[in-house]
C-alpha cells in the first residue's frame, strides 16, 4: 500500500494561478480551463457527437431530453453509457456503470456522501449533471484502490476505525484523500475544514481526524 499511485497522476498537470503549496488548481482566464488531456477528450467527444447531430450553431452542443450515449473518463478509463440530461453524475456512476461505492444520501449537496473528484477537486456528484463530467477526469472511490493496494487514507481509516456503518466512508475518504493530495502536511483544523460538508451520523469524526493526520504523515514520508 505504500507505493500507491492513483492512475491520474500520470496525466499532465494544469497551470496554476495561485501556485501555493503545490496545489494544482483548475485555472482560469484565457483558456486554461481544462487540462490538455481533458481538452483533447472534450473535443473528441464533441466532434463525435456533433457528427451525429448536425445543424447545431457553432459553440453549441445540443442534447435532447431523451437518453443519449456519452463517454465519461472515470478513474483513468473511458466508459460508454447512456444518460439523460437530468441524470446526475452520482446516478450515472451507480446505475449506469455499477460503481456503487459513491453513495447518495441527502441528494442536495448537503452531506457529501457522493463526493468524487472532478479534475482532482472534490465535488458533490449528486448535484453535478452527468453531461458536465464529459471531458473531465472523474475519480471515484473505486479509483483510489486496486485489489492489492489501497490509498494511504483508506489504510489509515481501517487502522483507526474511522468508520461505523460505513455509509459516509467513501465520501469521507474522497474528501480526506483530496486534502492530503493537495496539502501533504495538514493540521487537524485543515481536516475539519476539508470534511466540513461531510456528514457522519454515527459520529466517527474524531477517528477521521486521527486517520487523516496519520495518513498524511505516511504520505509525506513516502512522497
Amino acid at each position: 500500500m505504500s507505493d500507491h499511485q492513483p492512475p491520474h497522476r500520470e496525466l499532465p498537470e494544469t497551470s496554476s494561478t495561485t501556485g501555493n503549496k503545490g496545489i494544482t488548481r483548475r485555472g482560469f482566464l484565457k483558456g486554461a480551463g481544462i487540462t490538455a488531456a481533458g481538452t483533447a477528450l472534450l473535443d473528441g467527444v464533441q466532434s463525435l457527437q456533433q457528427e451525429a447531430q448536425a445543424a447545431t450553431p457553432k459553440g453549441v452542443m445540443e442534447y435532447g431530453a431523451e437518453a443519449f450515449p456519452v463517454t465519461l473518463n472515470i478513474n483513468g478509463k473511458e466508459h460508454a453509457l447512456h444518460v439523460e440530461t437530468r441524470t446526475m453524475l452520482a446516478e450515472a456512476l451507480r446505475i449506469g456503470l455499477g460503481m456503487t461505492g459513491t453513495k447518495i444520501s441527502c441528494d442536495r449537496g448537503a452531506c457529501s456522501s457522493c463526493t468524487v473528484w472532478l479534475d482532482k477537486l472534490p465535488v458533490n456528484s449528486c448535484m453535478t449533471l452527468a453531461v458536465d463530467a464529459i471531458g473531465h477526469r472523474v475519480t471515484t472511490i473505486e479509483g483510489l484502490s486496486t485489489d492489492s493496494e489501497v490509498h494511504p487514507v483508506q489504510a489509515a481509516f481501517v487502522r483507526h476505525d474511522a468508520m461505523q456503518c460505513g455509509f459516509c466512508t467513501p465520501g469521507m475518504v474522497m474528501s480526506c484523500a483530496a486534502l492530503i493530495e493537495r496539502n501533504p502536511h495538514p493540521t487537524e483544523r485543515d481536516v475539519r475544514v476539508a470534511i466540513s460538508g461531510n456528514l457522519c451520523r454515527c459520529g466517527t469524526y474524531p477517528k477521521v481526524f486521527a486517520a487523516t493526520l496519520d495518513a498524511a504523515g505516511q504520505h509525506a514520508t513516502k512522497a
Partner: protein
Amino acid sequence: MATHTPHSTLDALINVAGDTTDASMKTAKMPIGIPGFTLHEEERTVPASEPPVWPINKDLSYVGKPQERWDGRAKATGRARYTADVQLPGMLYARFVNSTVPHARVLSIDTSAAESYPGVKSVHVIEKLLGGAVLRDPTLEQNRYPIVRYVGQPIAAVAATTPQAAEDAAAKIKVKYETLPFVVDMDQAREKDSPQVFPGAADQAGTAGGGGSSASGVPQTGNVHGPAVHKQGDVEQGFKDADVIVDAHYTTQVQTHSALETHGVVADWKPDLLTVYASTQGTASVREELAAYFQLPMSKVRVITEFMGGGFGAKFGAGNPGVVAATLSRKAGAPVRLMLDRQEEHLSVGNRPSSDQRLRIGAKKDGTITAIQLISFGTAGCGTGAGCAGPASNLYKWATLHVEENDVFINAGPAAAFRAPGHPQGAFALEQSIDELAASLNMDLLDLRDRIDENPVRRVQRQIIRESAIWKSRNPRANADVGPIKRGIGLSQSVWYRHLAMDSAAEVRVHKDGSVEVLSAVQDIGSGIKTVLAQILAEQFGVPPAQVEVKIGDTNYPVGPNSGGSVTTASLTPAVRDAAWQAAQKFLASVAPALGVKASDLTLTDGMVRSASGKFQPIAFRSAAARMDTNQVSAQSRRIPDYDPRKYDTYGGVDVAEVAVDTETGRIHVKHVLAVHDCGRPMNPVAVISQINGGVIQGISYTLFEHRLLDPNYGIMVNSNLDKYKIAGSYEVPKIEVQLTESYIGQSSTDASGIGEAAGIISAGAAIANAFYNATGVRIRQMPMTPAVVLAALNQPKPQMEAL
C-alpha cells in the same frame, strides 16, 4: 428498589432472561467487578455444557484487544454493498406517491396515466398502511383507503425501468382528498377544542427496539393518550417528608433519525421464494413481518442485509417500503428497488418524540430522595411511544414515585425507537433537577449522587470523574468568568438495561483445511458485530480474526437478534462462543483417531492441539485439522439464559462536558467531553470507543441543533433535508476522552453487554445544560439550545448580565 422500565415493549420483543432449566449443571468461578477497583471471584452454577470461564480481558489473546474492523477495508474502498447498491437483472425502480396534506379522507386515486406511462411495470395503491396507532374501534372510520394522518404518508407506488420513469409516472397519479381539520402543534393538540387526529381511542403495538407505547387500554381524552400511570408508595406523603423540593418544567423537540442510508429494500418475488435485500436492524423482524403480511411460510422468505447504513432504532420490520416493494415485484414479475428519498426519510419512517415534562423531586437534608413525581407529555405523531420516565424511575433510589406518561397525537409521521428511547428526554430533566437539588442542599454534585445512586459501576465511574483533570478544573461557583465567553463544566449520568434477545443463534464450522467460519442471521448495523464474532472464533481456534470467515446478515443462517436496545453483543456472543466451543470439541473428536488418542485426552488452546497424557508434542491447529476424519464439523448453539438473572444491574455511564458559552451570540461550544462508560466485558474496545464517540456527538447534535419543524398552518415539514435540518458536523466535534469501566458480572460465557444506548446520547443534553449553568448561572430547560433559545434564557433578568 423496584425497576420500572416504562417501555416494556422492548421486553415484548426481547425476552428478559429467564431461569436456568438445564438439568446438568456445574459450578464455575467467575471474575466479578471492575479490575483495579472491585475485581473478585464469585461462584456461579452454569450448565455443564458451557465452555470454561474466560479470564478478564488482559489475559485473553484476541477478545478485549483492539481489533481492526473485520469489514473495514470493504467499507473504506467502497466495495461494501449496501441495499441501494444491489443490482439484479431486470430490476425495476420504485417511487412512492405521498400525501401532500396532513389529514384527509382519500376519495379516489386515478392511476391510469401512470399505468400507461412508458417503462412502468407495476402500480400499487396502498389499502393497508403499516405504522402508527390504530383505532380500538375500527368501525369509527370506514374508507377504502387508509385515512391520511400526516404529510408524507405513502398512498401508492410505481415501479418502472428507470428511476426517472418511476418519478415521472408517480407524478401522474391523481389523488382526490376530502381534507379534514388537523393539528401539528402539541400544545394545541392538548386543548379541548383541537382537531382530532383519531375519531376515537387508538393504540399502537410496540415496535421492535422499543418504539411505540407499552400502554394500551390507557384512557384517551381527545388527542391525549394517557396517562399511563406508575405509582409506588404515597408520593404526597413523600413530598411532606421532604426538607427540600425542586420543581421544574422541561421541553425537548422532535428529532429525526436521519441515518445516512435511507430506508429501503430490493424485493425479488419469485414463485418459490421472496428474497428481500433490506436496510434493516433486524433481518428476523423483516422476515417475520413479510411472512405475516403475505401469509407466506417463513421458509419462503429470505432477508439479506450485507451492509446497512445506520438505523438508530428506526429500521425494524419490513414497513411500508418492504411490503410495497414486494407487492410491486409480485405484480411486475421482476425485482424492485424502493429506496426512500431524504424527505420521505424525515417524514414517514420514525422520529424521537418530543417531551414536555414537569418534574418534582423531594429530598431530605442528607440527600435521600423521598419523592419523585414526573408528569410528561410528548408527541410521537400519529403513533405512541413518547414516555420518558426511565431515568426518573431507574437512576436513583427513591422512597415514593409517581409517574404519568401521556402521548399526544398530532398529524405527523409516527415515531420509532430512537437510540435509548425516552432516555435522553428523561435524563435532560432529571439530571438538571438533581444538580438543582444538590445546589439547594449545598451538597457536592458527586457526593449527592454517591448517596442516592446504588449502582456499583457508576460509583466507580464517579470516582474516575472525581480524579479527572477536567473535573478538577471545574470552578464550583457558577458564572465565574467575566468576559462574554464563559466556560463551564457539568455532568450527567445515564442508565440503560440488560435486555436480551434470547432468539440468538449461530453456527460455527471447522473445515479440514483449517479454515473456520461463523454463520448467523444477525446484521451489523455499524457497531462491529462481525469483528466481535471473528474475535471469539480467533480466541477459540487461535487463528487471527482477519482469517475467520464471518457470514451474517442472511436469514438462511441461524436466527439472529434484532439489533435494538443494545442487545446484540450481550445476546449473540455467548451463543457464538458456545458454538465455537462445541465445534472445537467435535473437531478434537474428529482428529483423535488419527492422533491415536481418545478425544478426552485432547485440548485446543492458543491455536495448539495438546495431549494431556503427553502422547505427542503440541500440534498447530491447522496441521491437526488436516487429520480430521471428515471435511467439516459444525455446531450450532443458541443463547442460554443468564447464569444468575437475579443479580441484575442496570448499565450506565457518567459524562462530563465542558462548554464555552458565547453569551453575546448565544452559541454554545462543547469543547471537551469525558465519557466514562460500562458495557460489561468490552469485546473490541476500539469499536466500543467509536460507538461512544458517536453517542456523544449525536447527543450534542440533538441538544444544540436538530429540530423537526412543521409549519403550523399547513402541517408540512419545512426542513426535510440535511441543510436546514441541522446535524453536527466536523467543527462541532469536541475533544472526546472515553474511559471504559471494564465490568464483569458473571452472566454468560462471554459476559459481554451492549453500549449503543448508554453511549453518550442519554446524558449529553443534561451534561451540556449543567455545564451551561456552571458557565452562566442560568438554567436552560429547553432543547435545542439554539442562539434564539440561549439568548432568551440569558435575557431573563439577572444582575450579572452585561449590558449589550
